[in-house]
């Protein structure tokens, strides 16, 4: 009997374990029947349904109202703008964030979490300096380090001096006791280059992980997590305190480059679900999965735009009907492109049956057979 079952083996085994054999048989039969009933019909235009399922709630989303629920959560783009951002496959989200989960011993220790957070936070020279000037008289750059912020970040002047000396190998770096930094070029350079040096100094990375501009430890039911503004998945995942199985970034391209395309697919699904849930909208997972699958079909992330998914359509007419039709026509002419008319929109254009739903089956009158029958009937009548 179990050979006739089309439901997955795991479920069959589970039910067989849980119930007595007669009961299990009954349940399995019922289950099998309802699965058979629930199966999708071949030819269903599931793409359009998925697109509509995500497009229709778009009209109900808010555009720029931020919610005030969290006392001090990181503000993240949400609603329709975020959804558009995901489908556009923007290289960098407008508010990149990471949610960092920590490993067992660390996640319940508030002090440790705060320490980790401080360690992650990127500190640039800019953040610890009070003022910066270009001293044209002595032809050098002078910057005043704020001792207060140094203390805040638990840094010492020596640390700063070390990193500065490392980077400015071609210049003479002096750090005075009161926090005055003097950088004098050893070679003769132009004034413009001196100003360039100034911007370079401001941008010097002192500590932390590049890209993480803010950190926020939050207490959740299962211990502390760290939310960040700015992402750097690659480096964060390498930290030993971090739980790499849970930690996520909302930058889909980053996920793709660090963890691969399947992870990116999951990231797209996750981000869409999060944005929809936040707006109180209910969309079945299947639709979201299908969209994520089309976006990652080619092994890289393609946006739902004329440069992404729509560019890859085989049919000239389908591409032309979407955006910038003429470009596609001229290109098609020089490339001798052939439209096989396999898609929906092409067939709509030329008034032919679309190859979805009832359009994939054909009903033909078997005239030969029909004629035989009528002849037979006539013969019968004649007899």
């Amino acid at each position, binding site marked *: 009997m179990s050979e006739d079952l089309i439901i997955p083996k795991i479920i069959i085994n589970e039910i067989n374990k849980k119930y007595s054999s007669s009961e299990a048989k009954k349940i399995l039969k019922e*289950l099998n029947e309802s699965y058979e009933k629930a199966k999708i019909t071949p030819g269903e235009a599931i793409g359009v349904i998925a697109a509509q399922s995500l497009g229709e709630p778009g009209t109900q989303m808010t555009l720029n109202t931020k919610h005030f629920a969290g006392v001090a959560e990181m503000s993240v783009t949400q609603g329709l703008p975020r*959804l558009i951002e995901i489908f556009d496959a923007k290289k960098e989200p407008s508010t990149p964030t990471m949610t960092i989960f920590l490993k067992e011993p660390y996640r319940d220790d508030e002090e440790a979490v705060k320490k980790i957070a401080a360690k992650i936070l990127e500190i640039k020279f800019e953040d610890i300096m009070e003022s910066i000037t270009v001293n044209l008289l002595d032809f050098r750059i002078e910057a005043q380090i704020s001792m207060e912020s140094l203390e805040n970040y638990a840094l010492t002047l020596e640390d700063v001096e070390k990193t500065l000396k490392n980077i400015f190998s071609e210049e003479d770096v002096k750090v005075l006791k009161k926090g005055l930094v003097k950088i004098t070029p050893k070679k003769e350079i132009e004034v413009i280059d001196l100003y360039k040096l100034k911007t370079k100094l401001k941008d010097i990375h002192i500590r932390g992980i590049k890209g993480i501009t803010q950190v926020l430890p939050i207490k959740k039911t299962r211990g502390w997590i760290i939310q960040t503004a700015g992402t750097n998945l690659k480096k964060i995942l390498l930290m030993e305190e971090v739980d790499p199985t849970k930690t996520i970034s909302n930058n889909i391209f980053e996920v793709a480059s660090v963890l691969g395309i399947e992870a990116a697919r999951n990231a797209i699904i996750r981000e869409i679900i999060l944005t929809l849930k936040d707006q109180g909208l209910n969309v079945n997972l299947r639709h979201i999965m299908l969209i994520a699958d089309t976006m990652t079909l080619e092994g890289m992330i393609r946006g739902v735009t004329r440069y992404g998914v729509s560019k890859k359509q085989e049919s000239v007419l389908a591409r032309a009907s979407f955006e910038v039709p003429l470009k596609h026509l001229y290109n098609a002419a020089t490339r001798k492109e052939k439209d096989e008319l396999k898609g929906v929109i092409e067939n709509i254009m030329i008034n032919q049956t679309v190859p979805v739903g009832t359009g994939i089956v054909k009903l033909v009158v078997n005239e030969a057979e029909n004629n035989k029958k009528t002849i037979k009937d006539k013969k019968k009548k004649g007899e």
Partner: protein
Amino acid sequence: MNDLVKEKIGSIEFRLMSPKMIQKMGVVKITTPELYDIDSYPVDGGLMDLRMGVVDPGLRCRTCGSKVKECLGHFGVIELARPVIHIKYINWINNFLTSTCRKCGRILLSDEVLRKYDEKLKNISLQKGDIDKWAFIKEIIKKAKNVKKCPHCEEEQLKIKFDKPSFFNEEGTRLTPIDIRERLERIPDNDLEYLGLNPEAGRPEWMILTLLPVPPVTARPSITLETGAKSEDDLTHKLGDIVRTNQRLYENLNAGAPEIIIEDLWDLLQYHVTTFFTNNINQIPPARHRSGRPLKTLEERIKSKEGRFRKNLAGKRVDFSARTVISPDPRIKINEVGIPILMAMDLTFPETVTEWNIKWLKKFVENGPKKYPGANYVITKEGKRKKITDETKEVVLKELAPGYIVERHLINGDWAIFNRQPSLHKMSMMGHKVKILPYKTFRLNLCVTRPYNADFDGDEMNLHIPQNDEARSEVEVLMNVINNMITPRYGLPIIGAIQDQITGNYLLTKNEVYLEKKEAINLLSSLGGFNIESLPKPKKIRDGKEFWTGKQIFSILLPKDLNFETINKSDEKVVIKKGELVEGTIDAKIIGAGKGILLQEFYTKYGPEKTSQFLQAISLLGINYLAQRGFSVYISDTDLSQELVKKIKQRLEEAENQAYEVIAKYKSNNMEAYPGRTLRETLEVKIMDILNRARNEISNIVEKNLKENPTIVMAESGARGSALNLALIAATVGQQALRGTRINKGYKKRALPHFEKEDLGPMARGFVKHGYKGGLNATEFFFHAMAGRDSMMDTGMRTPKSGYLQRRLVNAMLDLKVWKDGSVRNASGQIVQFEYGDDKVDVTKSKGGKIYEGDKK
């Protein structure tokens, strides 16, 4: 009529058009810019030449002999006196000129290099497809461009400068289209592929036009104004310019005019031909109509939303459609639509005459077009269409025989597609059964307003009548309302009870609701088809009178084998045992549109037909019970007791004080900023938090303390409104937001002149203390209006944005479908998912994608 599809377009190929082809296509050589002679008859060899088709009724096409509408038109041809560049291929021409040798015409890369590229190209097109191949070719062209010496004939290359829009200079000397054409002719076929042109698509020199195809007259019909004056199409105007310049150039060439004049005319010809193709090139001033309006030439006809592609090809105008205002009708079936009789007499269905229905159809013909139900046309076996009039009626009746088609009026039981824009869903177009009704509006059941998102404040809807049996049966089965009750978006019924229907059922099924026999029978008979014997035993008998509970009445509508258990909106258990509502109150979560779990259970268990009947019954039960019982709302419903008013006032004051405390802290620099926020932002967050908490608490207080009254019943049953709406009316409107923050803009350092500068307090920044009923004061009212305007803007910006998003989504996914093996593939057969949704389960056929919940038992 035989409408079997006999021929089908298999594929469409795009190529360059050769001069030979143009010559062959052209049925007439256009030589004169004149259009008509004195008798306003088209001139031979003019742009309206009768050989290119006809637009005037009464004339015949001189090429094919057919009349207007029968003749699709034929191309003409203009022989250009001097060749002219096709402006849209200018980039290709530029590539050809710069990356081929000026002497031998070969590409400026050695054969060895080419062989390498050849292999690479083959690999790319095998692995990634043709689109990537062409992207790679761009790189080859770039390489070839910078070569200074031809590797084939060692000729030194001169630098060619391209001046937009269409001039080429080779180190000072101008290359005329003749020169360019000569060079392009020299490029061997084998090199073309590396230059971005498929050699099978055509020759590069065809990009320089020597012949210009003239679109048929039917593509540019002239309009006769009321005054009798003819107004020509933009294209005709443009073509006239071309012919005129061309003729002048000819004459000057023949007369041996000086080079300057010839060159000027040549450039003019180039300009006209360019603007004939597109009138939207940056470097060229657009050609204008006499009135100053830019002409709409070929490209503008194709482009954009109003262009050929999106307006005429991807969407088409249809016949047998209707549109009018909609109005509600609770007694019409869920899958019916009421159609005005006047419309039914214009909308027809072509019924083929057979020996079995000839008698029936003759009645329609007899009635003619003016009497309902009649028929408007008859189509004979030969396909001739005959209008039925009083004069022709007799003849038609006599000759009517099997094989004829009668276009009869719409009758009850026909099928129609009903639609309301914006069509965001597949449920925006559903199949309804036709019901002919008096008056002039479409009538629809209230339960289907939800999928259409319709109301009756003047909404109009469209109706389409399928014109053959195949289409009609698809409408009846696939598009039928009752087969689309479950939305594929999340698997719950989108068609369900709404508003008063929910309230009615809620009040009816509450505990301790007893109905007398008369009441019970009245109620049940209002549903129609009720059998008095199905009334169960009365629950209570008092003073010799029989009483039934509301739950009992509701249970009559349930099938006897239904067992169901769930939780309703107010977290009560709802238990149905053997078709008997044993426990719990029915509310929006059980039967409401977009939520109703009971309806979903019903649907999977008993199917669409029974579900729609059940829904119809409960919706009528709901409103009829309300009508019987009486239900109205008063302003006093939201009155609060003195005590409560005081309490709320206190809570508000408390919140205000808290806010001021925080502000004081901020002003004295005693506040700590949240990580990643400035002090000011922190303050805003804190104040917002305090005020919102206060409002939520107040809304809870209001909800808890109001005694049961109609307004509360509506909120509680989920029919309309919520606890928050009540709080807005009764207690306080709360913080008004502008762009997601408190209102901080307006005057210098204050939002309104009524407040002091730098006042950060709640009142000064848009907090509305009063409720709607109590009335807002002037500043509050203004803040409220500001927030209202802001939300209007939000809606205004959102609609086009989400519309565009949906268009993109649909375009990207419209070819995806489930194949017979359960996999999802796109138009080219590429697999997107091996099993749809990983389990092949259809959302509409299951409980939100889950198939079985037997484990609970």
